[in-house]
């Protein structure tokens, strides 16, 4: 998200700041505001919670060129020469938060033409100048899966973004080693996608439409395989089928909105039929079919809202979903569903899961590494691990306390949020200029309630 107004005013200031490049030694106290990228930086003195290992009291994390190059207790961790030390005594350092399901940028996928539109790619609809991006880094988010909505059976392709301080969405998007953009496929069942024709009117029709589309995609893939590169035999390109072919090949994860117990099982059935990898999203009634979810080996990305309901299929959403799924060893992540919940309050969601019995370790993992795993990004982010991207958050206390503030957020070693900077504080707290001037037009809003 480009800080278009702010960067211009901040750059000269930054240049004037004293950049201390001293031979490394402890006790070089710098505030969070004064470090600058370039050369190794040692973040020292904090309680470091790496998530993939035990917490390190008085730890040191060394960051160089956007990556974590060393991590460990202060007494035993060697510091590279020629770097900077940032004193984080009394602070808590956790991995950057990963939101597996966001609508930041207020983009849409498929339109009202029909219920299945895999060809629509949210990448092309995300407005990274939306203030929500600034609020998200204020909440400690560093990686998000931006999704089209749930008003379609297949509403389009999702896009995985790093919340870098970029100018265009190309600066934010995550790519694989071949340079291809990373993302998933958004699907939904239950009541949101039940509408007038050509949308389905029943659950059975919903599943039948999805099944027919996947069968078409399977035939398409088989034709391509049989053609063996012969242009005479290759079928015409079909943008609506290609994402499904990728899903069935395991290259594109299906992110599936689902609430009711039977809808959850329908997703698992379809995933089994067509061999796509699926993350179940929202999963309000997960507690009713936790054993079935566990047996299927599916992952769940949960949301907690401040009261049950809002529609019939979310009536039985339960704060204990996290604890119950954790007890069944089901991989659990959380998501903001921003705007449904505010990205600034993402830590709070996991804290409420802890309130309802989830372990603190499990809840923090759900905000970070588990989310990375559900996006196939665990090799580069999700934990504070040597070799991974330096995506991290500095807190002034317990991650699950209401009184704890995000002091700073870093993406690939660069600070993208700094609470001590007034412009950043505005987005953290709110106030004139921190919000979006338009109300989101979702699937279910209405003064007389949902359909």
């Amino acid at each position, binding site marked *: 998200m480009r800080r278009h107004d702010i960067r211009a005013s901040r750059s000269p200031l930054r240049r004037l700041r004293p950049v201390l490049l001293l031979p490394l030694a402890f006790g070089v106290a710098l505030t969070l505001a004064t470090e600058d990228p370039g050369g190794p930086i040692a973040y020292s003195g904090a309680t470091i919670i790496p998530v993939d290992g035990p917490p390190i009291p008085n730890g040191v994390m060394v960051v160089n060129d956007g990556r974590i190059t060393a991590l460990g207790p202060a007494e035993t961790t060697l510091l590279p020469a020629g770097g900077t030390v940032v004193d984080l005594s009394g602070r808590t350092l956790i991995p950057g938060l990963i939101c597996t399901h966001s609508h930041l940028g207020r983009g849409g996928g498929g339109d009202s033409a029909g219920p299945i539109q895999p060809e629509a790619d949210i990448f092309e609809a995300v407005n990274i100048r939306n*203030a*929500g991006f600034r*609020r998200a880094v204020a909440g400690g988010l560093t990686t998000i899966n931006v999704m089209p909505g749930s008003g379609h059976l297949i509403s389009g392709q999702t896009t995985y973004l790093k919340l870098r301080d970029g100018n265009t969405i190309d600066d934010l998007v995550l790519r694989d080693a071949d340079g291809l953009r990373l993302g998933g496929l958004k699907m939904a069942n239950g009541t949101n996608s039940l509408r007038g024709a050509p949308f389905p009117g029943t659950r059975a029709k919903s599943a039948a439409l999805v099944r027919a589309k996947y069968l078409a995609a399977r035939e398409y893939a088989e034709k391509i395989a049989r053609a063996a590169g012969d242009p005479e035999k290759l079928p015409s390109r079909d943008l609506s089928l290609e994402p499904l072919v990728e899903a069935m090949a395991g290259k594109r994860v299906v992110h599936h909105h689902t609430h*009711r*117990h039977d809808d959850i099982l329908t997703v698992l059935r379809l995933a089994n039929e067509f061999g796509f990898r699926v993350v179940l999203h929202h999963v309000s*009634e997960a*507690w*009713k*079919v*936790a*054993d079935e979810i566990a047996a299927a080996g599916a992952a769940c990305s949960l949301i907690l*809202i*401040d*009261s*049950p*309901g*809002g*529609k*019939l299929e*979310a*009536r*039985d*959403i*339960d704060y*204990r979903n996290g604890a*119950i799924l954790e007890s069944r060893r089901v991989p659990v992540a959380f998501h903001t569903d921003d*705007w*449904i919940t*505010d990205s600034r*309050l993402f830590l*709070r969601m996991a*804290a*409420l899961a802890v*309130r*309802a*019995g989830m372990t603190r370790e499990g809840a923090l993992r759900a905000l970070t590494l588990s989310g990375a795993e559900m996006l196939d990004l665990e090799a580069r982010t999700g934990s504070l691990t040597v070799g991974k991207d330096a995506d991290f958050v500095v807190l002034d206390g317990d991650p699950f*306390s*209401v*009184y704890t*503030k995000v002091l700073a957020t870093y993406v690939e070693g660069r600070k993208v949020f700094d609470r001590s900077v007034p412009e950043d504080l505005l987005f953290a*707290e*709110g*106030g*004139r*200029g*921190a*919000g*979006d*001037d*338009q*109300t*989101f037009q*979702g699937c*279910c*809003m*209405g*003064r*007389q*309630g*949902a359909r």
Partner: protein
Amino acid sequence: MSPFAARTGRLRTVLTLLLLLATGAAAGQGTPADGPMAGLPDRAPAKGLEQPLSSGQPTVIRAGILHTQARDATGAWAPPISDGIVVIRDRRIAAVGPAGSVIIPDGARVIEAPVVTPGLIDGRSVVGLAGWLNYGHDQDQLEDSEPIQPELQATDAFNGREPLLEWIRSFGVTTAHTGHAPGNLISGQTMIVKTRTGELEDAVVTPLFAIAATLGDDAMESDRSPGTRAKQLAMLRQALLDAREHADQLRRAGDDPEKRPGRDLRKEALGRVLSGEVPLLLNCHRSIDIQNALRLSDEFGFRLILDGAAEVLEHADEVKARGIPVLAHPPMMRATGQGENASMTTVARLIAAGIPCALQSGYEGYVPKTRVVLLEAAIACAYGASFADALGTITLSAAEILGISARVGSIEVGKDADIALYDGDPFEYTSHCIGVLIEGQVVSAIVR
């Protein structure tokens, strides 16, 4: 069986029925068949809640920390009492103080909790008119047939068995100012209830508290008036002038039935606003709408309460000078549309400015179908309000604005024994509400 016991028994039956309703779909599915209303099975509620209460038996609450939320003569909050005692007799608070200073009556039912507060007050809600399912049949908070309908009584639309009442109660909310929602120029009346499950008569504290009105985008219509802000003000002005004329006719007619105008519920309701008997609760968020609200109240001299008021701090001086209280937007209000400039610091800054304010759960068209003021006050506290001030916005400060502070809002002798019990700092995300009493009766014994 005492009347109290009978009532508790009936309440338990209702709770059980609600639980069955809530979890009907889950029956026989093998996993915890208890649903979202069940609380946490592996945690104990406050000690002593399970004891039956016999007729005339006093109740003693023993608190590790007792936040009475009483004010001293200067208006400052009384400090919390360590190892505090509350004695309850006949539904009311009979004694309060530190252990040792209060005589504990013989044979009392003793309830213990680490932290005790007054029952919480939701300053502005739609719960009971709006239901959790969010379908037409449980959404009675907004009548869209006309833009101005002050005659609509909240008492005619309140569902005292709405599960959302049970939900907010389980976090400690015992009193709610609820009623018609923002969304029409004048959407109807509001009322104040206790959150016990039952019929209207069991719940109602104040059958008519305010007339709810809305300015700004939320009260715009695409296919009829009002469609602009100027039109909104013109329509409100005309309605108030008509009501004033009606009241004048009534006054001039005196006892002469020939001269009396016909009954007009709409004009009569607005007449109660013009006379100052009932406040106008004006939902508005943007600066321009707040300015219009202040101008209108200056013109007609009615009692104004600002509802929501995301940009109110830009007019703090004018609001303070007029003595207008604010039922402030939830700190977690979405930063979109009318609330785009809302701040999590609004409450703290209103308090610092000396403007009376309380917190509201407000109205949501989708999810969460109700917010929980305890969770909102927690954010207000984390974003600048002191603990006592933040708790005040959902206890005594709310009671003062709602005109019910003689009865609820603090733990003081003579007030209703509405009590919330917690296992730690009530604002902490990981603390739990572990029991709730309304007028001395246990109304929630689940751990939330």
